[in-house]
């Protein structure tokens, strides 16, 4: 596992070698702020909490995670550098982990850059710090699952656009499973136990409890296991 380090370093620095990091951060923070203040009615809600911010995270991630991961493997395949990578003395697990952790670290930094919102609520009122902490923790974990899924999609193709669309679609499905309307529809079409089972896979409902300050073990495990499953599948895909 010691060979994760050089790969992590290279990939992480890679975000800052190109405009990707800066464009990404600006778009991420701007969309988070705009959604929170306008449709989220941050001020009108008159609450010293970040619930309005957190509730938009699953939707912002839906675009941002595929954007950050689409090049992860697709670009390596297109440019042929994966031939170099996989003839170096490192395992596929190390390569997948190194790249994923770099993407996750960068994503986490972007999430934490929303800290001015924390300062704002602290300045305007006396916030309950519990939900803010669990909300951020949940966002980072959920981000990890998103990124792992997007890394898998990227490993399936050598075309970044296809990687983006594929990631987007998988994440969209996982998001929609938690929407009431979709649940009701599935309830009428499928046996109740199946509909219930499928709705357990939703990002939205899994994030719900973390957003309001709880630390549900099941939901945290869900994000971790989903992420690990996607990463393990990525390894299998790359090893053919």
């Amino acid at each position, binding site marked *: 596992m010691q060979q994760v380090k050089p790969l992590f370093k290279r990939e992480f620095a890679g975000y800052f070698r190109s405009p990707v990091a800066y464009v990404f951060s600006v778009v991420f923070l701007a969309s988070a702020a705009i959604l929170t203040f306008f449709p989220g009615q941050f001020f009108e809600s008159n609450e010293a909490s970040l619930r309005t911010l957190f509730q938009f995270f699953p939707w912002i991630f839906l675009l941002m995670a595929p954007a950050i991961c689409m090049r992860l493997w697709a670009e390596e395949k297109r440019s*042929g550098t994966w031939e*170099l990578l996989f*003839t170096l003395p*490192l395992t596929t697990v190390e390569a997948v982990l190194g790249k994923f952790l770099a993407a996750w670290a960068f994503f986490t930094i972007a999430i934490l850059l929303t800290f001015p919102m924390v300062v704002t609520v602290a300045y305007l009122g006396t916030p309950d710090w519990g939900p803010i902490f669990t909300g951020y923790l949940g966002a980072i974990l959920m981000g990890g699952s998103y990124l792992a899924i997007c890394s898998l999609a990227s490993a399936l193709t050598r075309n970044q656009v296809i990687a983006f669309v594929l990631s987007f679609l998988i994440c969209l499905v996982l998001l929609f499973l938690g929407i009431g309307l979709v649940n009701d529809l599935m309830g009428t079409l499928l046996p109740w136990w199946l509909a219930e089972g499928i709705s357990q896979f939703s990002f939205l409902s899994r994030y719900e409890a973390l957003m309001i300050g709880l630390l549900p073990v099941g939901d945290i495990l869900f994000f971790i296991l989903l992420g690990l499953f996607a990463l393990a599948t990525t390894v299998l895909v790359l090893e053919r």
Partner: protein
Amino acid sequence: MSKEILPQNELIRVGGLTKDFGPFRAVNAVSFGVRKGEILGFLGPNGAGKSTTMKILTGFIPATAGEAWVEGFSVQKDSLETRRRIGYLPESSPAYPEMTVEEFLLFVAECRRINPRKNRQKRVEEILSLCFLQDVRKQTIDTLSKGYKQRVGFAQAVIHDPPVLVLDEPTDGLDPNQKQEVRKIITGMAKEKAIILSTHILEEVEALCSRLIIIDRGKILVDETPAEFRQRHEQHNRFRIGIEGIEISEAAAKLKKQDFAGSVATEGQTLLVKAPGRESIESALLKFCQQEQWSLKSFRKESGRLDEVFRQLTNPQA
């Protein structure tokens, strides 16, 4: 970890290697060995299976059947051990375009576990000067010309001083001077290593390789030294003798009676004498001309051109 004892300082051994891509058999039961100090030239038309063989040997793709060993380690079973011992320059030398030359080499050195950092830095310094890359060390790879890019690929392949080098078209796209430089570097380090290189250029095989393998449609056609290969040419060991003062047909008739002359033909006032075997008949021929007191206008030994032999072998219709 299983270790095979390879015969006679063989660093590379490939046995019955076969690779199918769907119904297409890209490599068909290829076997060969490469000893320390040898430079093996891999020749063949495009799509013959050269690159595929190299990709299997370096552990990038698995073989359908057969085995390959590097310093006694199996490529399939001890992939990490074999990859540590190989330096590989893939075709068209891929590299991360957004990194500078120095960053890229440091990255490869770290993946190759050249530790600690101080040694890594030192080794990259050495390699930069060995491959004439000092001028561009701070440049990002996407700004480099093809020649420099190729040298960066070569530099990353030798950074850990591996006992085995696999180079897929190392001089492709270089100008004649750069080709010469890369060849010099390769021959310079050949003594301590086993090197396989693929190429389209036959003169390169002559200049560099101690042995050559011709592969076509996945099969090995030829495995011999460049000198032996040259003898396959029909004009090999043929002499052109221009004479004066004697009827050419008379001279040809006299020569035909000699044992050393395999076949004799005429072309104007020139005799074309071919040896029956592979041994040179130069001295016997000269002696005979002296005895007969022919006055010679010219005396020239012809030797087969490699590219003509290559064409005959790989494209029998032409």
